[in-house]
C-alpha cells in the first residue's frame, strides 16, 4: 500500500479540537468498571454471606465446592492450599469475567477508558506505539467465542437458581412454593444476562453470520434475526446486566448479614 506522510502533525496526549465534553463517557466507563471490579473482587474473596435461604448470589453460582446447601459437589476440597483463602466464587468467576473481558463491546470501551487508545474519538493518545489486536497479548481476544460457550452454561445454572429460589423451607423443614423479592432479583438477573449473552457478536456469527445466504434455512434465519436484534443493544444489555449482577450480590449479602430482610410476596 502506498506510504503516506503526514509531516507537520504533532500529537500530544489529550490534544483535540473538540469542544464538547469528550472525556465524560470514558470517565463514566472508567468509574463504573472500576467500581464493579473492586466490588466483585472484594465480594468474591469473602467466601461467606453469599446465600440466603433459597437464594444464591450469582457471583458464586454454580457453587461447585463450598459450605452452603447450594453446592453441587462437596465442601471445601482438602487439596485447597491453606495459604490461599477459600471462596467458592474462585472456581467459577473467571468464566463470566473472561467472557466480559473479551466481549467486543467492553473491549472498545476499556481500551478507551483504561488505556486511552484513544481516550475518545479524535483525541490524541499518550503512546506512539500501537499493535492493536494484532499481536500478543490482545490477539487472545480472538477466542471470545469459547468464553461464550461457557457463559451459555452459566445461563442454565442461573436459571436453575431462580427455580430453586421459588421454594422456601420453613422452620419445620417443609418446602413450599413462594416468591420473594430475592426471587425477582434473581429472575431479572437471568433475563438481563440472557439478553447480554444471546446478543453476543460471536453468537451472531455462529448462528448465521458466517454464511452469506440465510434464505432457505428458516430456523437459522430466525435465530440470526433474534440474535441480531439483541445485538443492536448489546451495550445497553452489557451495562444493565453488569449492574444487576452486582446488585443481586449486594441484595443477598445484605439479607445474609441481616441488614436487610427479604420480603415474601407469595
Amino acid at each position, binding site marked *: *500500500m*502506498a*506510504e*503516506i*506522510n*503526514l*509531516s*507537520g*502533525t504533532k*500529537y500530544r496526549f489529550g490534544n*483535540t*479540537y*473538540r*469542544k*464538547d465534553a469528550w472525556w465524560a463517557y470514558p470517565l463514566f466507563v472508567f468509574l463504573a468498571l472500576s467500581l464493579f471490579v473492586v466490588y466483585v473482587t472484594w465480594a468474591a474473596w469473602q467466601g461467606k454471606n453469599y446465600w440466603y435461604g433459597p437464594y444464591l448470589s450469582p457471583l458464586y453460582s454454580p457453587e461447585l465446592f463450598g459450605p452452603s446447601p447450594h453446592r453441587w459437589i462437596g465442601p471445601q476440597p482438602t487439596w485447597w492450599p491453606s495459604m490461599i483463602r477459600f471462596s467458592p466464587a474462585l472456581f467459577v468467576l473467571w468464566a463470566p469475567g473472561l467472557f466480559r473481558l473479551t466481549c*467486543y*463491546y467492553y*473491549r*472498545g470501551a476499556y*481500551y*478507551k477508558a483504561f488505556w486511552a*487508545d*484513544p481516550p475518545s*474519538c*479524535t483525541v*490524541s*493518545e499518550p503512546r*506512539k506505539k*500501537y*499493535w*492493536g*489486536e*494484532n*499481536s500478543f497479548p*490482545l*490477539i487472545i481476544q*480472538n*477466542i*471470545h*467465542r469459547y468464553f461464550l460457550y461457557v457463559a451459555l452454561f452459566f445461563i442454565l445454572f442461573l436459571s436453575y437458581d431462580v427455580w430453586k429460589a421459588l421454594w422456601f423451607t420453613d422452620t419445620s423443614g417443609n418446602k413450599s412454593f413462594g416468591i420473594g423479592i430475592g426471587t425477582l432479583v434473581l429472575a431479572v438477573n437471568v433475563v438481563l444476562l440472557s439478553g447480554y449473552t444471546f446478543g453476543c*457478536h*460471536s453468537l*451472531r*456469527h455462529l448462528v448465521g*453470520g*458466517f454464511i*452469506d*445466504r*440465510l*434464505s432457505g434455512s428458516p430456523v437459522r*434465519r430466525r435465530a440470526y434475526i433474534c440474535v441480531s436484534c439483541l*445485538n*443492536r443493544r*448489546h451495550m445497553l444489555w452489557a451495562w444493565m446486566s453488569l449492574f444487576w449482577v452486582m446488585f443481586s450480590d449486594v441484595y443477598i449479602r445484605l439479607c445474609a448479614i441481616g441488614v436487610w430482610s427479604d420480603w415474601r410476596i407469595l
Partner: protein
Amino acid sequence: MAIATFQILRGDASNTRVESYSIEVSEGMVVLDAVHAIQATQANDLAVRWNCKAGKCGSCSAEINGMPKLMCMTRLSDLPLDKPVLLQPMKAFPLIKDLVTDVSWNFAVKKKIKKFKPRKPDNPDGTWRMAQEDIDRVQEFRKCIECFLCQDVCHVLREHQLHDQFIGPRYLVYTAALEMHPLDVEDRLEDLKKEDGIGYCNITKCCTKVCPEDITITDNAIIPLKERVVDRFYDPLKKLFRIFRFKK
C-alpha cells in the same frame, strides 16, 4: 440577521494559518453554505471540495469544531454560534490546500482488494436469483458514499499512521460487502488478516459514530469479518475439524 465567525485553516502543507471570517447567517444554512459565502465574497481562492450538497456524494468532508463531518449536512443551528466555528481539513490525509486533502491513498487501497467474482449464473441468460433478505445486509454497506470520514477518525490511521498496514474502516466495509455478497465466491480472509490488518481495529467505534450514512460499520461489518477471520485462523477446534475433513 445573526453574524457567525468561522476560523478556517488556510494554506498548504508547508505553511498553515488559521483565518477568521464573519458572515451573516440565514435560516437553514449549513456549514458548506457559509464556506461558499466566504469564498464568493471574502476569499475567492479558498479551496474546498464539494459536489451534491445533499449528503450523497461524500466530497465535503472536514473537521468542524474538531469532529469529522460533512459540511453540507451540518446545520449552523446545531452549532454553538456564540463562539467561532473551527473548520479544518481531515487530519488522516496529507493537506493539499485549505480544506482539501489528498485522499488518493484511499483509491490505491481499494484497487488492492480482490474484486467481485460471482458464482456461475443460475439461469441460462446469465442472471441470478437472489432473495431480498440475503442482500439486506450488503445493501447497508453499499450505502457508503466514500466520504472517508471513518478513515479520518480512525486512530489507527489518524494517530498511528499505519496506512501501509491497515486498510481502514471504509475498506473493511467494502470487503464485508464483497465477502457477504450472496454471489461472490472470492476468498479475502487471508488478505484481511495479513495485508489488510483487520487486527489493528480495536473496536472503538469512532467510525460508526461519524458515518453520515449511519452504516453500523463496527458491529455489522468489522466484527463479523473479525469472526470470519477467527474461524479460519484462531479457532483451534475449527482448525482441527478442517484438518480431519481434509484427510478424509
